[in-house]
């Protein structure tokens, strides 16, 4: 019997190549509890998407899945059209994940902590690049201070200064990046997000408050409703 050709599945390489990140039929769990199922998400270059959802809905779980820190119960994740599981070093370098925790060591100075995080990605920024990154987030003055002596907001700024070193990366996954930031810090981060988007990078972030970024206006992905608004 003749079967009419089906409509192309969104996970075919041709369709996926246009997206920086594509999740098909994704299911995630925390412990034994399923948090979401049949989730479809695609980020094209230049997109800034605000991941929304009630507490405990699985925002962090989804970000960790997309970053490759956890394996999904079902479904597939493609980064630049390549299945995440087969991602080689260049592809892994194209994703930056900044979690809830700042990943800074208390006994290192802000500069050293930032340099270490860059080196784990295989980058070798010089002192000028590190200073410029810290300056963008307004923590240049405390670059030689041990992280232990910095306030929560300052630590968050140092952690986010990584983004200024990774503007070339295709995808930023940010978990509550605005946490503990004051008005200046939020503005600095908005500037980075706008520059990244203008370069064609995609961003997916969670935030308790509605992001104040206006250019580009973040789109909303509501985990309670499972779709892009």
């Amino acid at each position: 019997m003749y079967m009419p050709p089906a409509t192309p599945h969104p996970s075919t390489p041709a369709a996926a190549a246009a997206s920086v990140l594509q999740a098909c039929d994704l299911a995630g769990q925390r412990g034994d509890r399923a948090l979401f199922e049949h989730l479809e998400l695609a980020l094209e270059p230049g997109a800034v998407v605000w991941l929304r959802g009630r507490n405990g809905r699985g925002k962090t779980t989804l970000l960790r899945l997309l970053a490759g820190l956890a394996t999904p119960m079902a479904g597939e994740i493609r980064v630049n059209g390549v299945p995440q599981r087969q991602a080689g070093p260049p592809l892994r370098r194209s994703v930056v994940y900044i979690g809830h925790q700042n990943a800074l060591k208390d006994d290192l100075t802000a500069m050293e902590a930032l340099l270490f995080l860059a080196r784990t990605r295989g980058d070798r920024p010089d002192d000028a690049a590190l200073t410029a990154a810290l300056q963008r987030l307004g923590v240049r003055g405390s670059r030689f201070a041990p992280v232990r002596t910095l306030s929560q907001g300052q630590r968050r700024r140092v952690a986010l200064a990584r983004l200024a070193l990774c503007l070339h990366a295709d995808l930023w996954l940010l978990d509550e990046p605005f946490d503990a930031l004051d008005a200046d810090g939020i503005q600095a981060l908005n500037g980075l997000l706008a520059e990244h988007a203008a370069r064609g990078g995609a961003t997916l972030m969670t935030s308790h408050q509605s992001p104040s970024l206006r250019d580009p206006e973040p789109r909303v992905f509501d985990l309670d409703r499972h779709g892009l608004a």
Partner: protein
Amino acid sequence: MRDLFLAVLLRDLKLASRRRIDSLLPVVFFIVALSLFPLGVGPEPQMLRDIAPGIVWVCALLASMLSVGSLFAGDLADGSLEQLLLAPQPAIAVAAAKSAAHWLLTGLPLIVATPLVGLLFGMSGSALLALVAGLLLGTPILSLLGALGAALTLGLRSGGMLLILIVLPLTMPALIFGAGAVGNIEAGLDAGGHFSLLGALLLATALGAPPATAAALRISTE
């Protein structure tokens, strides 16, 4: 792979240099634990000389196990471990670097302290040399297996005790051949076989433990 290995190793050494008291604790534990034996079994010189290799090995084993428990805990708590696992290079480099850092910060100081301990126990020069050579081959095994245990028990509440229960049985061959080599030397026999077996154990552990540690780290952070 080399970049990530060096970055992690140098960072851990730098962190230790900023917390010198903490990094001295294993070697202090080693010396204090050893000094209990003359008090416990009595100051009979011949007996102390006979038991010295065995108890040096046991104390080195315990000092390694007690210090290895926190190997990944700090990195897990502050989110560094997630970033290390997301690095473009394989996590085996992280596992190997953490094991190497642990050996440099714990195993090596124990070896340096051993001649002093040997003199306290009245060991002969050749026996002491055999003991140090055995420890040089054996303590890296302890660090590699300890890192595996630390990764397996990462995030568990009673991880420290469990770690020791998991790793101690695996370290027994190193203990047997390390202490046995000294016994052979003291009896005037050849200890080459013991050292060859220790070397073989070290090679097998160095090849097998880091991949297993890397896999355990991935599971623990999921």
